[in-house]
């Protein structure tokens, strides 16, 4: 029994190859059916296809022939050049295959580590395979465990905690200041792509009221409609500021729109409730010394980039911890698998030696025709107890080791030494 993953991903294959091997969700059933026909060596299988990877997870009895069938199928089905496929594809077996799936599901193998979509895609691929009855006990267990691993990593490490884009960084900072953004008010001064993106993220996090100010009142009204907010006259900014918890500014003004004395006054009116200023404009809209006022936090575009950088470092550190979790989960999977394989191995071992005994008995007794039935029975019993004694220790020790980390190696050794896989 062998588990393999065969595939290509964004690290091994250029987009020209990836797009050819990509399988649209609708075609997945068709693909699985054909795979069943043309690659019968694949006993259980799941096909995972995203824009960054196409991978086939399978249980095979023989790795080499299974991979060969698969390659032939892929070249035929996707019309890919065999040489290009050979160059880009990777095959991982047993522990490596299991580890790979766990990493993929928990987004450790993604282009952006910690991105949330991949788990859904893995779940989708598994669901499709189950619908077409392409999976069995082992692959089912493997995938279900991979979902748990992903969940565990998400809750126990911080790989997905921190924002890795500038507009999300603004949201993250707002949350570090205000905790919950529910019911907060944001003010937009000016317009621009990034400012609008940031507002969308803020609204998704619960920001309730959006005020929009612009040099031209009509433009403000347009934007306000877009965010379901209120347009504010630019000259009234001074009065409106005190309602605002978050101020995002991105005007083309050559001078400061919000000065320190104004911010100080507003904070007083707000009874020191904190304010978060985000200044995306170049030249800057908000006087830098606003950051010195108690309960005022001012971030410019460079600061936001700095948050993103720090978060990237943090994610990489957390990913290392996640890998440790993956390792221990891989071990757990094999403990389960060994237990599953234990009984068939022991039965095969018994049958194997019993067959040898029977064959040899017949051969010998045929030549010793003079023996009485009692003597024949005595020899039969003697050979039986001999083989029982010989295999007693291997079986007992195998059972004892089954729960330990080395169990898998012992199982492999027994199958190999007694030639059980032939």
């Amino acid at each position, binding site marked *: 029994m062998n588990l393999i993953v065969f595939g290509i991903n964004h690290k091994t294959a250029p987009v020209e190859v990836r797009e050819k091997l990509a399988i649209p969700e609708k075609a997945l059933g068709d693909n699985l059916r054909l795979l069943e026909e043309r690659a019968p060596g694949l006993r259980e299988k799941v096909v995972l296809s995203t824009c960054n990877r196409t991978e086939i997870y399978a249980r095979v009895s023989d790795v080499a022939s299974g991979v060969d069938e698969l390659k032939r199928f892929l070249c035929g089905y996707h019309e890919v050049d065999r040489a290009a496929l050979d160059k880009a594809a990777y095959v991982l077996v047993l522990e490596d295959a299991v580890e790979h799936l766990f990493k993929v599901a928990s987004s450790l193998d993604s282009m952006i580590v910690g991105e949330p979509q991949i788990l859904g895609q893995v779940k989708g691929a598994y669901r499709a395979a189950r619908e077409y009855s392409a999976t069995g006990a082992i692959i089912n267990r493997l995938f279900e465990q991979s979902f748990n691993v992903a969940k565990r990593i998400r*809750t*126990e*490490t*911080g790989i997905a*905690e*921190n924002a890795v884009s500038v507009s999300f960084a603004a949201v993250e*900072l707002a*949350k*570090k*200041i*205000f*905790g*919950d953004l529910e019911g907060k008010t944001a003010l937009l001064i000016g317009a621009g792509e990034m400012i609008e993106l940031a507002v969308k993220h803020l609204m998704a996090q619960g920001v309730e009221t959006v005020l929009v100010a612009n040099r031209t009142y009509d433009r403000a009204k347009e934007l306000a409609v877009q965010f379901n907010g209120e347009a504010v006259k630019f000259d009234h900014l001074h009065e409106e500021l005190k309602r605002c918890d978050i101020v995002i500014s991105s005007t083309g003004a050559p001078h400061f729109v919000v000065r320190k004395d104004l911010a100080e006054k507003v904070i007083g009116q707000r*009874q*020191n*409730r*904190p304010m978060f200023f985000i200044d995306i404009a170049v030249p800057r809209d908000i006087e830098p010394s606003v*950051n010195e006022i*108690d*309960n005022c*936090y001012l*971030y410019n575009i460079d*600061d936001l980039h*700095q*948050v993103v950088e*720090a*978060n990237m470092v*943090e994610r990489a550190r957390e990913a290392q*911890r996640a890998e440790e979790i993956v390792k221990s989960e891989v071990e757990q999977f094999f403990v389960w698998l060994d237990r599953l394989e234990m009984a068939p191995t022991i039965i095969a071992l018994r049958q194997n030696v019993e067959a040898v005994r029977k064959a040899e008995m017949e051969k010998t007794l045929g030549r010793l025709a003079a023996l009485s039935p009692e003597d024949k029975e005595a020899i039969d019993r003697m050979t039986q107890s001999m083989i029982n004694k010989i295999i007693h220790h291997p079986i007992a020790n195998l059972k004892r080791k089954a729960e330990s980390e080395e169990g898998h190696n012992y199982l492999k050794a027994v199958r190999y030494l007694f030639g059980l896989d032939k």
Partner: protein
Amino acid sequence: MNTPLIIATFLFFLGMLKYLLHLALRRQSLFILATIMIALGFAFQTAGMVMRSMETGHGPYGNLFEYCVFSAWIVFGIFLVAEGYYKIKPLGAFMTPVGFLLCLIALILSPNAAEAPVVREYWFTLHRTTSFLAFGAITLVFAASVMYLIQERQLKAKKFGAWYHRLPSLEILDDVNRKGLIVGFPIYTVGFISAVVWSYQKYGSITIHGSTALLILGWLLFAVASGGRAALGWRGRREANFGIVVFAMVAMAMLTHLSK
């Protein structure tokens, strides 16, 4: 010190270490273990205090040793409630050392923890119970204030290191500070008034000496901090600074007051 109290002190020590390690390594398992240790320690300490009370025939009001055990018990109790309510994971690293330190003092004092005559008077008991409760609340305020100042520093200086990622939002920390003050101040005031009443009943006058002066000063600072919040809209860094000063003041005053 009876066996459950020694076990409790040891468990608190382990719990504290695990909270500190969790702060550094952020392993979920460490956090869970730490909370279990502290909760177990709390149970042992409760048992130990009940046992001792049965032996001595009075509450934990006999001497400095008992005061330390009692105030540590309150600190850990408030900590467990606050952790369950706010789910601020680094709280343990800042609050449990205070409780453990009190247990440690008790451990050192314990060989000399001789029976002291106990004053069984209503006002005096009220004074001590409420004062210890207030001290527990101030310890919580202190832990939240330290975390607030660290996080505020990170956000202002735009340093996004380990602290930035580990500590919760300023809003939550400020809220802990606020609730701690709002609950703590009236209790402390009751403790203060009951001491005055008791002293009046007993001696017919109020004598102010070193440690009582410190306690009164602590009360004044406490009053300014909570009054500023309620009336003047103070919050954030200023209140966090107050939180730390009030804690230092009250802790120092209490230890000198009790060790007389």
